[in-house]
């Protein structure tokens, strides 16, 4: 018998533990959000993200968003960046070019700033949901010391349970199509040295989130 068969056979032969556990009912959200209206969600998201040491820029027009990003880039001549099609800021490519900032290959470890979009954001925990895919290298939100994420206000959902509802609505195939989906809550951190909080252990030590409010209106 293979180990697979041995293990499964042993489990099957055993008296079932917890056979009387009832099926799941409605799930109580782990982090409920009182006010789920769009403006309140932006407010909640920004407050939670800032509490996690993120810097949040609430921008009502594209110009302000681009200015915030160029400010973070500063004097750097190179950034890592997703394909512009996946970042909800149409003027980004042109603005970088005008500023003389080139997009380096995603695996370049020397680049300080990485720019991404996001697939969703969670108000309750100030989190970004980021799936991998063509044009969306995972290294861009991982290798640089500074991560800039651009998210539209209407991408903010109340909490992880609400995000899951959108996953179900789109169908599991779409979820499984991304080989990696990561929910990012603040900059990389460690407390392994005498419980002291240190940001930027392996991943980014700074997380800048640009929230585009109402630009389409």
């Amino acid at each position: 018998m293979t180990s697979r068969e041995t293990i499964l056979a042993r489990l099957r032969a055993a008296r079932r533990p917890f056979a009387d556990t009832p099926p799941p009912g409605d799930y109580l959200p782990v982090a409920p959000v009182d006010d789920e209206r769009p403006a309140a969600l932006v407010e909640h998201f920004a407050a939670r993200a800032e509490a996690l040491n993120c810097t949040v820029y609430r921008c009502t027009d594209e110009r302000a968003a681009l200015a915030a990003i160029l400010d973070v880039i500063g004097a750097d001549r190179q950034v890592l960046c997703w394909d512009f099609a996946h970042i909800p800021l149409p003027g980004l490519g042109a603005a970088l070019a005008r500023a003389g900032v080139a997009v380096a290959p995603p695996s370049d470890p020397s680049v300080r700033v990485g720019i991404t979009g996001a697939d969703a954001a969670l108000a309750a925990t100030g989190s970004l949901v980021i799936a991998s895919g063509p044009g969306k290298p995972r290294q861009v939100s991982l290798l640089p010391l500074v991560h800039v994420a651009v998210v539209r206000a209407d991408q903010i959902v109340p909490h992880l349970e609400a995000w899951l509802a959108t996953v179900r609505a789109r169908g599991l195939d779409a979820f499984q199509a991304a080989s990696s989906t990561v929910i990012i809550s603040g900059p990389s951190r460690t407390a392994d040295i005498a419980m002291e909080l240190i940001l930027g252990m392996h991943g980014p030590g700074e997380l800048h989130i640009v929230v585009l409010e109402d630009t389409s209106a």
Partner: protein
Amino acid sequence: MRSQAAKFVAAARRALADPPLQDAVKRATDTAARKRDLAMFAHGRDHGEALRQQAAAARRRALSRLPELLEQAEAHLTANGATVLWAADAAEVCAHVLDIAARHHVRRVTKSKSMVSEEVGLNDALAEAGIEVLETDLGEYIIQLAGEPPSHIVTPVIHKSKEAIRDLFVQRLGMPPTDDAPTMARFARGHLRAAFLSSDMGISGGNFIIAETGTLCLVTNEGNGRMVTALPRVHVALVGIEKVVATLEEYVLLTQVLPRSATGQAMAVYTHMINGPRRAGEPDGPEALYVVLVDNGRSAIYGTSYAEVLGCIRCGACINACPIYEATGGHAYGWVYPGPIGAVLTPLLTDLKDASALPHASSLCGKCKEVCPVDIDLPRMLLDLRYDLVEAGHMPWLWDAGMRAWSTATRSPRLFHSAARAAQIGQGLLPQGRKVPLGPLGGWSASRELPRFARQSFRAWWAARNQEEDRHDQS
């Protein structure tokens, strides 16, 4: 990893004579316990308690269908492009990993934290095969440099002071001396970054596997978990067979309760869901993903009265709440898992007689069950293990502690339980001349209101035991 649990008494005695160690552990566990309470009860005590019950039910449901969920997970992992391997024991885990390494011409491995890999002694096996392996969780990296095992499942260097870590980095890595923790971390970041970029294989553990989608789930804070699953050509995940959950809904619940219990975070920094290796058109990610489903003693627990321990999500809250752990630190427990969860798991996964001291390394104060996010009844299992020891002809240590009066009761399981409970309570209270009703269950609930007595009772037991031993030594 070879269990040293048989040496618990000697190791604990050394730890008890090491006040700086106890201070460090106490500071760290007190902080973690306080943060845990804030996070679990962020929306009120009733909400937090309801979450615990909801999470416990999720784990129990998963265990009740374990073989079916494992098969479902395997089918979906495979459909997602992962290769699923099964390992009955430590040797088979190591053999699988060495096989994979040979197939992919692996010379260098980076690892994120995996308690299963500690169970099976994987690092030694890789080193023997001439493969370089580097731990990348900062805490695991530090203890690897120091040549020590972890002393906590979440914060593995809880026992080490900043100064000790500084000296280690200066001696072993040539770090310019500094007392600034962020500078020390940045130094390690530089070292490890180079390793990530040049390694051929990443090894991780797995916090959950979602059966309905074949998703491997990891939670990390540092980002090393993302590095080892994104940068090397090959990713191998070692996952205990009990880690499977049925649906995304159960996962979404558990993956939020876990960091709340572990570190008091609402979410880990990186809550990671992996659905296979890099897909066509994807610019990065591993070319191959292997998921090794590890038994190593778990299936033998499954049909027993200890099955609920398989619901453990390894948050460490019971460790942070434990007065015995606070007094002895983690190394005394002698194997991978310290604290109350270790006192139950080590005898079950290694050898009951060898680890016979561990079920007694508890004051049965009940705090571990109270803080457990999935409501595992650790005190009940500690008592049952003591009973099993009696059945197997092992003298319970309570007798050594001067509690011989209770001995006649131990031939009957029911009486033994009552006696053990009452004895424990009496032990803690008598030295202070206090009185509580000694009706077994009445006394039990009374003692739960007074967690500080727990440490006292352990110390009293300890003192009595040492006197006994000294007498034996002299005779």
